[in-house]
């Protein structure tokens, strides 16, 4: 049996902040900034949330939806660039929380914004090789931009969990292709609180080159063109980049409609493409072909040629919230409360 997606779940923290509110504090026209980025608001984690709690929420939803026994999970990987600990895995806490321990392998992945898709590829290999029954791949982040930096207008929090298996596959993976180079567009060194970036260098030589090349390669290998896909999901550091790359590759707004979630929740980094895919799957019936192309700075793209099966018609999505709910709901914060939540206020005595 071919390995594929057997279940999934997504989670986005409930708080939101608008670019206008951020700009108000920094003396910048935040509304124009938001329009330029195509980001209306971004999600903000509460003080008690981190990539462990987000992963756990998303995975619990996935396990219940797919009626999966956590003890049958043979591998659990969490892809993120904001793991709560530099040393001590996120994956073990998540595995324990959902009852998957101790008979599994677990690890944290990091590849900027594409650690989650890398985790999917690893799980596909292990499931396909029949080393394990189920593999769990999670992409999640609570990343931050430095106060006042352009990144602050988009960096948000959220994540999605995908369970890969061979039985009751709701979405087949026809093929996955990667494109990787040493391109230093965005980085955070050990001990640094906020990431650094190469400004406009993050565009053409980084995001656009890798996403475009990887998309071309997978469509060439699969013998497909843009029109063969009902849906397309790109990594979405803002709302503009995926729209532009999609247009360049010949995809229409309709094909991109469900896969683009950043305008309403911001850039969830490792969660971004995966939450987009979860939203697509929320709206899919059987036989719908999907192209997903992730991107991680540093840099690389992972592309997936996917197709939903008849099983998706029987898939119980009633547990947990659909992605659409997170796009439409949320409690807006002032910058002051946001700053407190995100630990940007220096407390006396520290």
């Amino acid at each position: 049996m071919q390995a594929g997606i057997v279940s999934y779940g997504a989670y986005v923290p409930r708080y939101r902040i608008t670019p206008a509110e951020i700009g108000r504090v920094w003396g910048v026209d935040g509304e124009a900034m938001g329009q330029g980025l195509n980001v209306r608001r971004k999600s903000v984690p509460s003080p008690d949330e981190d990539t462990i709690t987000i992963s756990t929420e998303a995975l619990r939803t996935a396990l219940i939806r797919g009626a999966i026994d956590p003890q049958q999970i043979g591998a659990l990987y969490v892809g993120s660039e904001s793991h709560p600990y530099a040393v001590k895995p996120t994956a073990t806490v998540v595995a324990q929380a959902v009852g998957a321990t101790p008979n599994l392998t677990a690890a944290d992945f990091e590849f900027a914004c594409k650690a989650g898709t890398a985790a999917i590829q690893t799980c596909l290999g292990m499931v396909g090789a029949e080393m394990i029954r189920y593999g769990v791949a999670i992409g999640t982040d609570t990343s931050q931009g430095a106060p006042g930096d352009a990144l602050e207008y988009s960096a948000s929090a959220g994540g999605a969990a995908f369970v890969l298996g061979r039985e009751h596959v709701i979405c087949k993976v026809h093929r996955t292709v990667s494109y990787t180079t040493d391109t230093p567009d965005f980085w955070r060194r050990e001990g640094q609180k906020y990431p650094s970036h190469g400004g406009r260098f993050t565009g053409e030589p980084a995001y656009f080159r890798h996403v475009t090349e990887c998309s071309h390669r997978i469509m060439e290998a699969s013998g497909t063109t843009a029109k063969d896909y009902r849906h397309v999901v790109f990594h979405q550091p803002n709302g503009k980049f995926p729209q532009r790359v999609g247009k360049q590759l010949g995809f229409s707004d309709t094909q991109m409609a469900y896969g683009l979630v950043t305008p309403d929740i911001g850039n969830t980094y490792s969660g971004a493409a995966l939450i987009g895919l979860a939203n697509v799957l929320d709206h899919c019936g059987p036989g719908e072909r999907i192209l997903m192309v992730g991107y991680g700075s540093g840099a690389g793209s992972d592309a997936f040629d996917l197709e939903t099966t008849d099983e998706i018609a029987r898939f119980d999505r009633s547990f947990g919230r659909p992605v659409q709910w997170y796009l439409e709901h949320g409690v807006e914060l002032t910058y002051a409360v946001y700053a407190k939540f995100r630990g940007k206020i220096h407390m006396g005595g520290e």
Partner: protein
Amino acid sequence: MREVAVLGVGQTKFGELWDRSFREIGIEAGLQALVDAKLSSADLNGLFLGNMASGSLIDQEHIGPLILDYAGLGRRHLPAVRVEGGGASGALALHQGYLAVASGLYDYVVVGGAEKLTDVPDATATQITSSTADHEWEVVFGATLPALWALVARRHMHLYGTTREQLARVAVHDHQMGSKNPNAHYRNKLTLDQVLGAGPVAEPLGMLDCAPFSDGAAAVVLGPLETARRHTDTPIRIAASQVACDTMALQHRKEFTTLESTVVAAQQAFQHARRAPRDVTVAEIHDAYTISALVALEDLGFVEKGRAGPVFASGQFAGGGALTVNPSGGLKAQGRPFGAVGVAQVVEVVRQLRGEAKDRQIAGATLGLTHDVGGTGATSVVHLLERSN
């Protein structure tokens, strides 16, 4: 003093050349110019290289021998001189090359200009380029080049009634011109509304009133006019090469809507060449900011003081008239790799005078002028070039 001619020209594309190094673009432009001049490196007597800030921008000083070395001339033991004059470094290097050949000491020299500005973050580039103004009297108080030029713009508006729209017309013009230049950093056309609606940089200047930071290199080969026909059918004579300086800081000038360095350099150039502004058919002028172009047109003698706004907006410099301005797209559209700008201006004018400018060729181009400015006018360099028959 013997007459000097431009025998060959070369230029890289301008823009964000992130996959190319400083030495690579410098060599490309130089080799293009040598090939164009039908000269081999064995004929060369020296290199003059205009560059503003390689030490701050790419952590590399001593770039004269660097370029010679990586061009394969390291063991020829030729003299190589770096020339620095802020944004006017390229034209200043050309002036030095001109003096060397005119004096008779050197026969053939390459004059290059090269800058790699986009390997540092924009804020760093702003800081480094602003050091071409007076650091102690202007920059430490927060002034940047666009801020200082914004003061010039405000004063020009106050004294002469120049409007925001008239400033914006310069950017629209440059992008229209640049759209036909394959080496230009920006080839997109701009509408007046786009320029007026762009985010503010230093009021009244918006983002699209300011030339970009660019990477790029340009080079020319100079030689004695008397033997120029051995190398080219269309030698271009340097009819004048004049440099003038002024106070570093804007506030020490009598009036800052006039760049006296430009006025003096232009007057001396026209006097030397026994020509007048009305004889010029093509001009590449300093338009780092839209206001710079208007002030330059007045200071060079093309337009009466205070009248550049409405005269420029009338469209008479856009081609088809007596004078065409910035057919390359200028600094605004062709790009602004500081030390390369002055040489690239000459490359464009030479191509126009030779009739080799393809889609952007100006009919009947005979006498050309180039105008390069450092800082807010502490250095101005004016060259007059004409086809030698």
